[in-house]
């Protein structure tokens, strides 16, 4: 069989319109990292188990290693680079910083996006909600408790505002 042709994919990333030419089955993860140089999104397992590559696709948390880039055509994508407003960290990012929620950093972008996704739908989650909301994000350093504490702190901080 002859090679497929690259296809033009146009979408919004962190509020900016972008267009790339990619192989039809290219992973959104690779388009973000290699074509758009948004290397905040990490590759962990490459099979949807670890959540390191999580991004928001039209507001829904997805693992970008399992999304073909063509499914982002016309969509709006938020990566970790789009979570802060300029130098103003989001409540989740600030809480991770203050409560030791990040250690080596590989899982952190996915953790932050999973937490942002959770709090967008459920501003006052129980600890069980937090554990379920972050269950698809694996961390091999902190042992999770500091991450859960960070998310709880982010809820409180949001509530204080």
């Amino acid at each position, binding site marked *: 069989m002859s090679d497929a042709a690259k296809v033009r994919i146009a979408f919004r990333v962190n509020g900016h319109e972008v267009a790339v030419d990619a192989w*039809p089955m290219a992973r959104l993860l690779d388009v973000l990292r290699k074509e758009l140089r948004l290397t905040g999104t990490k590759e962990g397992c490459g099979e949807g188990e670890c959540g390191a590559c999580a991004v928001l696709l039209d507001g829904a948390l997805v693992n970008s290693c399992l999304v073909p880039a063509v499914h982002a055509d016309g969509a709006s994508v938020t990566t970790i680079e789009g979570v802060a407003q300029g130098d103003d960290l989001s409540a989740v990012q600030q809480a991770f910083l203050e409560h030791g929620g990040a250690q080596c950093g590989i899982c952190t972008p996915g953790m932050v996006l999973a937490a942002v996704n959770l709090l967008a739908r459920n501003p006052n989650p129980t600890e069980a909600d937090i554990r*379920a909301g972050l269950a698809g994000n694996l961390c091999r350093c902190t042992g999770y408790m500091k991450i859960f504490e960070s998310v709880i702190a982010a809820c409180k901080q949001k509530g204080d505002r």
Partner: protein
Amino acid sequence: MRAYLPKYEMVTPRNMEEALARMSAEPGIWRPFAGGTDLMVLLDAGKLAQRKFLSIWKLPELHGIAGTREHLTLGALTTYTEVQRSETLQQEFPLLCRAAAETGSVATQNRGTLGGNIANASPAADSPPALLVYDAELELVSARGARWVPYAQFHKGYKQMDLAPDELIARIRMPRARSGWKQYYRKVGTRSAQAISKVCFAGAARMENRHIADVRIALGSVAPTVVRCMKTEEFLCATGALTPAVVTRAQEILSGEIAPIDDFRSTANYRRRVAQNLLEEFLLSSG
């Protein structure tokens, strides 16, 4: 080894007619591609044998949840997240919601679909046991027309389905007939999130005077396909009160209806014992 991407084609049909026409023109060549949570794993592992894919993810005909008095009908591309957010499903088909909540993580639930789970035909899938308990039927469509098949008869063997190369799973329908039934679902895995099940059990029983008047029992991960255990069901319907002797006999019959194996997730012995224990827990919680 990773896949060589230029060899893979993905086409996005504008509507169902175009999708079915392609599948009809080259049967077996075009594989439907929904949320990708199974196929993309194979792609990255370099194990995706098929080369041509039809992206059906955005076809409106395959989405949505609609009800009549008799049935609730789900588009095949209803995601696990949509299943959990449906109040009707939460009220009338709670086992499907439990299964959806225990399938993968939030990110997987946002992309994984019931129809994709069925077509992937893993014996370890979590939603099929619930669909079997609810007497689900599948609508299979092709350029030749549409037909409904009972889900209990759809899986013919390991990864073998009653699905022609030009057919697409379009809708899933369940009779609204479980009101008042005792319902039970339990997935046993290494951890409660993400893990693929070692054993998955769904059951529903209609009780009359502490006797079982009607019952459905289905399991995942204990045979080459998900299985409905009809001999165990028949025994339980024909018997009287749920005495310890009846439960033990039902466990023996169940053991004859499953064929678990040793693999990297668990052992045949463990799976058989757990399947029997889950049956006991289901029966004791119903009685």
